[in-house]
């Protein structure tokens, strides 16, 4: 009994030792690579924060409203933004290199998947940023227009436009990443269809009322419209 236990123990320990002997060098390499990547990432971050001014990019973020949209504007100064992006990128690349040191089928698959995904991810991020900018720009335009036209609830108009544009961007980004594209598209189409239906009903009902008023007050209409104009005085 004790002999068989000792044999089992020896075999187990031998197997562990074999595994350790096989995995230790790549693990050491991986750790060294990770440590180097971390040091490099910190260094790159420090250098970028202290040397990259990026005033033009700051202005773009501010003008476009992306900074405002993100609600944490101080953290989104371009120097920090770029430094954070480079920091994350160096760490991810370091992790991939570290994983590839193991040279197993699983790690190879992970590395290959991430390597294929990274460019798509970058495109998706760019798409989302562009969408955020466009959504903010058109949302603001709509808000100001709605205020100047004296429409009810201008903020809702602006937010609706912003949501529509950004939602569309999310659908496109999901499609780029091949991440449940049909689910995103379906949800978006349902929302847009619902919105269009609601607006059609609202406009239809209001239009009927307006037409009725128009027909009943035709003679006084032009004079009233002239008086109602905001811009006679220009």
């Amino acid at each position, binding site marked *: 009994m004790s002999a068989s236990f000792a044999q089992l123990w020896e075999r187990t320990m031998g197997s562990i030792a074999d595994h350790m002997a096989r995995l230790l060098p790549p693990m050491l390499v991986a750790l060294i690579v990770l440590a180097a990547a971390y040091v490099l990432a910190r260094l790159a971050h420090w250098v970028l924060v202290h040397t990259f001014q990026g005033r033009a990019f700051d*202005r773009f973020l*501010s*003008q*476009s*409203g992306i*900074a*405002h949209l993100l609600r944490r*504007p*101080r953290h989104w100064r371009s120097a920090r933004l770029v430094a954070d992006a480079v920091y994350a990128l160096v760490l991810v690349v370091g992790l991939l290199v570290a994983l590839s040191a193991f040279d197993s089928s699983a790690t190879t698959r992970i590395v290959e998947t991430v390597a294929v995904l990274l460019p798509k991810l970058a495109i998706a991020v760019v798409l989302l940023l562009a969408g955020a900018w466009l959504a903010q*720009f058109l949302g*603001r*335009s709509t*808000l*100001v*227009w*709605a*205020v*100047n036209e*004296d429409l009810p609830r*201008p*903020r809702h108009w*602006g937010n609706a436009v912003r949501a529509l544009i950004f939602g569309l961007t999310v659908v496109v980004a999901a499609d780029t990443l091949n991440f449940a594209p049909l689910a995103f598209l379906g949800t978006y189409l349902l929302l847009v269809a619902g919105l269009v239906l609601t607006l059609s009903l609202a406009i239809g009902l209001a239009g009927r009322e307006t037409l009725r008023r128009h027909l009943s007050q035709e003679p006084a209409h032009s004079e009233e*419209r*002239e*008086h*109602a*104009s*905001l*811009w*006679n*005085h*220009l």
Partner: protein
Amino acid sequence: MAQPVLPEEALRCLNEVSKADIVIGIPSYNNARTIGHVVRAAQAGLSKYFPQYTSVIVNSDGASTDGTRDQVLRTEIEESHLLLLTTPLLAVHRLAVPYDGIPGKGSAFRLIFELARALGAQACAVVDADLRSITPEWISLLVRPVLYCGHDFVAPYYHRHKFDGTITNSIVYPLTRSLYGRQVRQPIGGDFGISAKLVSRYLERDDWETDVARFGIDIWLTTIALAEGYRVCQSFLGAKLHDAKDPGADLSAMLHQVVGSVFQLMAEYERQWRTVDSSSKVDLFGFRFDVGLEPVAVNVDRMIQTFLQGCDNLPEIWALAMQPAQLSAWLALARRFRDHPPAFVVEDELWVRTIHDFARAHRRRPLERSHLLRSLTPLYLARVASFVRDTWDDGAAEVEDKIERLCRCFEQEKPALRALWNQGPSPPIEAAERAEAGGPERKPEVEVKS
């Protein structure tokens, strides 16, 4: 230097008339109803006052669909009704040419100036096509100072109803006067006399494709003449009565284009206006007389309503454009009006500082310029509403006194503008955050009168 843009039709016209001493330009777009009168007045003016000169009337049309061009070519002066002491020696030619490029008054002017230069004109005058009060004397008053007195730019001087021309009275005149130091009362009047030298200078510029091509052209013409030291004078033309504006047109765009052009030129001519401390009068030709004016209907309640909408919805945008003191004062004004409706007075100081803030924001671009300028509309309407309420019972003289007071306020605030102009961008993001978090910490510099 901008390239000549003469369309083929204009070149064909130039073959017919190769030289002219005087060019009268009439930009038009769907003005068939009034342009006949304007052409008749121009032709009579040329025949009566400049019989010895070769003259051309140019209608530069923006693809009108109501037969405006046909009307120009068809219009005949009724010679039997016009008693001339001198016989016109030379015929007055008429050209009706469509312009190319961005639709707008500026593009029409560009074609007129190109033709004036090509014809070698000594003087050029431009008049609006929707005028109902133009007389032959206008042509004399706009052209004579150029031909006989060596002036380069003749600005109009009209009597207008107290509620007419509010962009001029509340922004363009006081700001232009304080910046460039000359008291040109109607800098965006629309009817000008211009020398050949100045016409060439205008054509040299390369900003014809900007807002200048639209409603910004009038202030562009005036500002260049003032800032570049050309000889400027005014001519008293009587009353300005024009056709009702197309209610379908986006007239609020006029505000944005005019104000945008003023701000744009302010940045360009910074060196010139920085050295100006006060303003001086400008020579005025013509005999001044009082005239009856058509009342202008204004809807004060809707103006205030739009302002209140702005206060509810635009503080984040205004916070990017205005200093906290001004933003706070506007929001306080809205609050006071809601609590106590009779209290609605936009003080001159608040208005002047707001305009200065917007001018700086236009230069610094803390947000898109189109958003910036459009967000000014509710504030502008508030100022107009305040002015209308304030001057409701006033006569023309009292109203003019109040405009003069606003002009002096602009001049007094000019040192502050100089200081503000050079300041780095106020941290707009933090300002917006402050506004969102419940307004500025600083005590407002301007007290709002209740």
